[in-house]
C-alpha cells in the first residue's frame, strides 16, 4: 500500500482519529493539530505499518505525541482546582452543553488517566491492549481507570454516568 493507501486511510479513518485527538486535548484546534502532526510522522513509515494495524499505530502515536506535548506545555494546562463543579445542579444539566462539560472534565484528568479513558472507554480496548499501548501494567490501567471514573463522577453532572448523557 503506497501513498494512495495512506490517502485512503486518512479519508476512511481520520474522522474517528480526530475524535480521539479531541478527547485527548479537549480542544478542536489542538485536536486537528495533533492529528496532522501524527499523520506527518506516520506517513514516511507507511510502507512498513500499512500491512499491520495502522489505526492502532496512529492511535498509539496520538497518545504518545500528546504526552510529549503535555510534558512540554503542562504548565499551561488547567489544574484540577480550577474546574467548575458541573455536578452541583443536576437540573441545570439540561442547559449545559454536554460537549463542553466533557471537554472540561477530560482536561481535568491527569495525562495517564486521560489516555486510559480514551483507549478503554472510547476506543473500547481491553485492559491488556490498553496496557500494551501505554507501556504499563494491567494493574496500572485498572487503577488509573478507577481514579479517572472517580474524578469524572465528581466533575460531570450526576446523571451523566448513570444514563450516558441521555437527557
Amino acid at each position, binding site marked *: 500500500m503506497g501513498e494512495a493507501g495512506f490517502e485512503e486511510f486518512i479519508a476512511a479513518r481520520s474522522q474517528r482519529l480526530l475524535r480521539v485527538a*479531541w478527547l485527548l486535548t479537549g480542544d478542536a484546534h489542538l485536536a486537528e493539530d495533533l492529528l496532522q502532526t501524527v499523520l506527518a510522522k506516520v506517513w514516511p513509515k507507511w510502507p512498513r505499518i500499512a500491512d499491520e494495524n495502522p489505526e492502532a499505530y496512529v492511535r498509539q502515536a496520538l497518545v504518545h505525541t500528546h504526552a510529549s506535548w503535555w510534558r512540554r506545555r503542562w504548565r499551561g494546562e488547567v489544574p484540577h482546582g480550577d474546574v467548575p463543579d458541573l455536578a452541583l445542579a443536576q437540573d441545570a444539566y439540561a442547559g449545559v452543553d*454536554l460537549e463542553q462539560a466533557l471537554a472540561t472534565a477530560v482536561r481535568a484528568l491527569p495525562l495517564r488517566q486521560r489516555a486510559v479513558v480514551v483507549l478503554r472507554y472510547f476506543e473500547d480496548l481491553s485492559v491488556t491492549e490498553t496496557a500494551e499501548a501505554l507501556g504499563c501494567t494491567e494493574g496500572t490501567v485498572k487503577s488509573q481507570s478507577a481514579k479517572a471514573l472517580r474524578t469524572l463522577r465528581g466533575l460531570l453532572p450526576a446523571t451523566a454516568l448513570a444514563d450516558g448523557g441521555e437527557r
Partner: protein
Amino acid sequence: MGEGAPLGEAEEAALRALLERGVPQLGAPAQRLERVRERVRRRRRRAAAVAGGAVLAVAAGLLAVPGLVRTGGGVSAAPPAGVRGSTPPATAPTGTTMPPATGEGGYRPAGMGGLLMRMPAGWHTLPDPATSSVFTSTQDLALPEGGCAHARDGFCTPLVRALAKGGALVMFREQKYGQAGKMHDLALPVEEQAPYQACRTVGGTRQLTRTLPDESGSDLVVWIVACMAEPTDEQFAAARQILSTAAFT
C-alpha cells in the same frame, strides 16, 4: 453516586455511551491531506538541514584548536576520543565541575528542592540556575550563547562537543506545578521514547524520560531527559539507573 462507590459494568457502559455522544463530530478541513504533505516536506527539509549542519560541525570539529575550550579545574579540553561531531559553545564555556559527593552517595544540587541524583563516577555536571536545571554528562558541558531558556523541545543540550558514541547527556529541569496537591498524578515512569530533535542534533539515538514530582508537600516537579548516542546495553542501563534512582529525599 458517591465518590467511593465501586465501579460497575453499568457505569463503564454509561461512560462509553457518554463519550460516544459527547465527543463532537468535528469537520475535516478541506486541505488536511495537503497540510499533512506540507508538514512531511518541512520535516524532511529540517532533517536535511540537520544532516548538512552535522557535516559542517564535523568539519568545524576537525579545525577546532585544542585548548580553546576550558573546562572545570582549569584543564584544557582535548576532544574526547571518538567524538563524531562538534557543537562548540558560542560563548566562553561555563566551567563544568565534578559533582560533590554527599554522605548519601549522591549529588544534591543547590536550589532543586531535596532532589538527590546518583550518577556514575567521572560524569560532569553543570547547573543552570536561570532555567532551574542541572545537566550531567559523560562529556564536557558548557552553556550555549543565550542560555537554555529557549531550547528546542524544552531540552537543552549544553555540550561542548556532540555526543561521542556511547556518550550521554541527562537534563534535570525543575518546574513549579502551582498546586501542592495531587502531585502523585504527575508522576511518569522511566520510559524510552523517540529522541527529540534536540537530542538527535547532538548525535543522540536513544532517549529516556521521567517526570518526578516532589510528594513531600511542595509543588516541585522535575522533568528528566536522558539523550544517548548509540549506547551499549550497559551504557543504556547506566542512564536508566540515573533516572530511576533520582529522588526527592
